[in-house]
């Protein structure tokens, strides 16, 4: 199983190198990227079967979905809009997350707490991870555009923001659905759809950050620097929601525990 993950990692790194060095033979990069995606999907399938539950519970498990999701999104959006602009960043981001997981392997625990045994579990987390993949890739592209133009002392052009914007147009509706699926699930499991639990609060902040981006972009299409900067900041909030919230003192107050006697 680890071999498949290593194959995915290697394919994405090699794919990035191929895209950068073999521009006239981009099909080599395409093949390697697809090989990485197939290995990653197969790895997730085997992991699911071996655990006997959806591998969507721990941060490490969601990182695997992200590692596979980013190249998939990069591939689909690239195919839809006939561009290879996303190929290298999506391969590198997938490789980075795969490497983090391989370098810090988690204990693969087969247990699944009762609250997670819900029909909402899989759609909620998968929709979220696809959304995070698109939004993360969008923010990475935005950061790349800003840095590139800054180093070249050039003005950011409106067309620079097109690809990041397309990714947000995919990611934000999915983020909305993920948020609402979570609310429906919370109602079934804990009795209320929204309790301003620390995780919920950070999910709202992430959503608000990307909504702000969308409105700023709508208002200032000819001045894309501001919107792209908001997009980069949005990813910082997203990472805070995904990983950072567990480190905060407020995480101790989470209502997502269900063995209390009140």
């Amino acid at each position, binding site marked *: 199983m680890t071999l498949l993950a290593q194959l995915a990692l290697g394919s994405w790194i090699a794919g990035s190198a191929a895209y950068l060095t073999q521009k006239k033979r981009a099909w080599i990069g395409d093949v390697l990227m697809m090989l990485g995606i197939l290995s990653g999907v197969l790895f997730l399938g085997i992991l699911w079967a071996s655990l006997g539950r959806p591998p969507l519970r721990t941060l490490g498990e969601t990182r695997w979905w992200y590692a596979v999701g980013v190249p998939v999104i990069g591939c689909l959006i690239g195919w839809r809009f006939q561009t290879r602009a996303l190929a290298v960043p999506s391969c590198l981001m997938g490789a980075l997350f795969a490497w983090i997981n391989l370098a810090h392997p988690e204990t693969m625990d087969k247990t699944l707490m009762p609250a997670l045994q819900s029909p909402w579990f899989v759609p909620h987390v998968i929709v979220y991870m696809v959304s995070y993949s698109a939004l993360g890739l969008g923010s990475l592209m935005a950061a790349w555009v800003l840095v590139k133009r800054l180093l070249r002392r050039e003005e950011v052009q409106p067309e620079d923001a097109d690809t990041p914007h397309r990714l947000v147009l*995919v990611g934000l509706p999915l983020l909305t659905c993920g948020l*609402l699926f979570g609310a429906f699930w919370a109602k079934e*499991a804990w009795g209320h759809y*929204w309790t*301003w639990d620390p995780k919920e609060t950070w999910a709202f902040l992430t959503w608000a950050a990307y909504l702000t981006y969308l409105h*700023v972009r709508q*208002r200032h299409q000819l001045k894309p620097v501001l919107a792209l900067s908001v997009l980069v900041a949005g990813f910082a909030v997203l990472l805070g929601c995904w990983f950072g919230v567990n480190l905060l003192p407020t995480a101790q107050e989470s209502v997502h525990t269900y063995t209390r*006697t009140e």
Partner: protein
Amino acid sequence: MIRLMIRSHPRRPVAPAKEQAAPRDSEAFWQGRLGYSQAVVVCAVAFAFGMAMHASIGYRLPATLNPFVWLMALAVPVSLVVGRVGRHNRIVHWLTGIPMAVTTTTAVGILALIGGVVPESWFQQRMGVESMWGSWPFLVLVDLMMVNLCGSVGKRIWPLTYSNIVYQMSHLGLAISIAGGAIGAVTLERHIMVLFPGQPMTIAYARDESEIKLPFEVELKEFQMDFFPPQAALARLDPSYEDGFDLVPYGGFLGQGTSHRIAEDKVEVQQFRDGAVYAGDEGWKHAPWKTTGPAAKVKVTLPDGTGETGWIAAGAADTPQSHLRISDGLALVMLDPKPKEFRSLITIRHQGREIKKTLKVNEPITVEGWTLYQLSYDDKAGKASAYSTLEVVRDHGLPVVYLGMALMVLGACLHLWNGVGGKAK
């Protein structure tokens, strides 16, 4: 400014510019093009107003009398109409526009960030408010956001073009959800019910511990609990850890005849008991009671070929925990089995009718407008818990919230379709 002057003095000759009284800065600020700066000022004033309410009135008002909670619900129809009727007015246009949307969302986001980082206990001890979410500044800013949101929907409520419909679904959906949430904040009833086997109950307890009489009776017949098979871990003595040892967990399940590799050590389970009691030299004997825990006889083989054989047990109410010492500073322990499912077998009696139900996490039951949730149990006693805790909830705002959420999901799907279809600008 010039237009206003002409209106005020239509027949007078225009005075030379140097003789005119210079417009005050504040007038120019509000009479020019309204945008982000003005929105920031309005948000700052709203925040200051909220703080003034916090300092003066405080939180003596119950939610049912809080005008800003009601305003959240009322903002939907009022702002819709005002946004529509006054859409050509510069003030209304600005109040319902993007600069105000961005600024109010940012302001609410900043307060949410504080609420998401600072523990609630700080608000309770230092600010005299239960949390950020019920504080005056937060409520006032959310109201402002609602005015902007609903007014913007009013502006685009007609004509019914595809783009306006998509816009309304996401924006009106959000507004309806927030309004439903406000109704819920006023009318929500969320209480705790503690059930003991064989004792019919009609009383639930509110957060302030007052008793609430329910229109039905609930009796716990039995509390049941299932566990995942137990897991093992290697415990290495290490004073640098808080508990004095470093635990290397293993995700696999222990069972009769299973073999595992934990770190570099091989662990083979020779005998396994679901529930067992310690029987001295005879090891652990099968005893499937609620107060016993699992035990296993294991053989541990170290990488150098040496090893140990013996019993490990997780421990339970009536049985001790037992570990297998492998070498100096190294032992194999059995971890407490993790809950797989817990459920209450209950009988609900109402108006002479009797309904038997099984209440589980994620599978609530609705009776007479009240929804019952399996909340918790005595986690120290585990499956021997003497009681089961239920949550009983009634929320009149829920249908409104669900309507809003359904519109938002539809709006999100259409936005996604537009995004993938490349129609978005």
